């Protein structure tokens, strides 16, 4: 990918970009990964605890307990987003908050809250999926492709 970019740049531009890269404050990849690991793992542990509660006290099964667990995590994320706290946690935790379903909820809630000034229909309704849209679009499309392939393979196998 970088080779393609280099072909379009003049030598002066290439030289400048090397300088700019050298001056860039290096992201502490190890520290960021550790923070993501800790926060992401903790959120999943919390989710696991919720699942146990839902199975034990609310008559959910291991299969179905994932749904109310996600719902609780989503509600908590929306509240933290609304109180202006989520983005501060996320700046520290990075992927630790954006990879679990908390990140999905935050992307929808933050966009909805932000665009209220443009009205509820076009503002909130129209912008809600601004950031979460790609996840849904590509999730659905890839599931469709995978599904079609699997069904075709099954059919070809004569089952």
């Amino acid at each position, binding site marked *: 990918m970088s080779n393609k970019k280099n072909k379009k740049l003049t030598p002066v531009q290439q030289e400048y970009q090397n300088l*700019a890269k050298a001056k860039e404050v290096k992201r502490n990849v190890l520290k960021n990964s550790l923070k993501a690991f800790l926060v992401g793992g903790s959120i999943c542990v919390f989710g696991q605890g919720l699942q146990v509660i839902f199975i034990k006290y609310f008559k959910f099964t291991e299969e179905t307990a994932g749904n109310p667990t996600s719902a609780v995590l989503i509600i908590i994320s929306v509240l933290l987003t609304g109180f202006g706290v989520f*983005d501060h946690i996320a*700046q520290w*935790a990075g992927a630790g908050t954006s990879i679990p379903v908390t990140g999905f909820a935050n992307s929808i809630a933050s966009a909805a809250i*932000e665009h209220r000034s443009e009205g509820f229909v076009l503002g909130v309704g129209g912008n809600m999926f*601004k950031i979460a849209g790609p996840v849904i679009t590509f999730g659905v499309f890839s599931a469709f492709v995978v599904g079609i392939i699997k069904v075709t393979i099954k059919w070809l196998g004569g089952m």
Partner: protein
Amino acid sequence: MIQGHQSWVFKSKPTILGCGTVGGPFEAKGALAKDFDLLHEDIWVGQDSFEKSEKKLLEEACQIAIKNAKVKKESINFFISGDLMNQIVISSFAARTLNIPYLGIFGACSSSMEGLAIASLLVDNGAAEYALCGTSSHNAAAEKQFRYPTEYGGQKPPTAQWTVTGAGAAVVGKGNGPKVTSATIGKVVDMGISDPFNMGAAMAPAAVDTIEAHFRDLNRDPSYYDIIATGDLGKIGHDIAEEILKKDGFKFQEGVFKDCGKLIYKKDQPVFSGGSGCACSATVTYGHFFKEIKKKKLNKILVVATGALMSPMSYQQKESIPSVAHAVSIES
């Protein structure tokens, strides 16, 4: 009067008669807080949207500048303003309130010096008796338009910058006070940087190009000025610019080459690489530097405001970020 290829020398030395600077809560905790005319406790400023808040900030800065210049609003011939919002609505709506003939400009974060250069040109050539130039920016409005919703939990890299919430305005005319002596209009420079979270690196080449053009056109060298300040290159862009200028033979004495984005905030504020936004260079110049020149602590400064000329769509279409820088010299 044109000098060299792209510079103006203002023979009649138009004066900055008065300035107005307004800031938000982050700026109130910053390093130059005491040089602001008005500081707000929150970014809403009593309005119900960020965009309306920014408009209020620009209007306030203009009104304070007019008051400090001791001229009647009705005697100001032209209002020159620009900002970061789509179609520069902030400036247009402020112009509606001020009811002064309006020239809208767009230079992204270089708007402050672009406006000051044009205002000075008009006054110097007798095309205006008084000209008002201003600009504004708002952290939340800018994040909403250019990057992500403000409550979104996307991790910002250390090369990112913090858009200043504020506005700066100045009235230019004939009288006593700090004088605008020259201006150099910059060319658009693009070194292929395409990361909107590293605008310092995108803008540094434009700053270098304009600074070198200024010294070339006016046949000066850096020792002429007490301070040469770039608008908002931030730590990374400023370092890059300094290195390239040194390589090209421009030597700065200790403490001469500064950056408004590095000056405006304290070291313990979470602003990553430094301040940015149109209001960054405007509030530091019309607040801090203006006051220092009036107190005769500074005599000759060159402010090189830098702007990144991308749109939210251009970098999604894999375009790089072209930049421009405009320089104005102010002397006591």
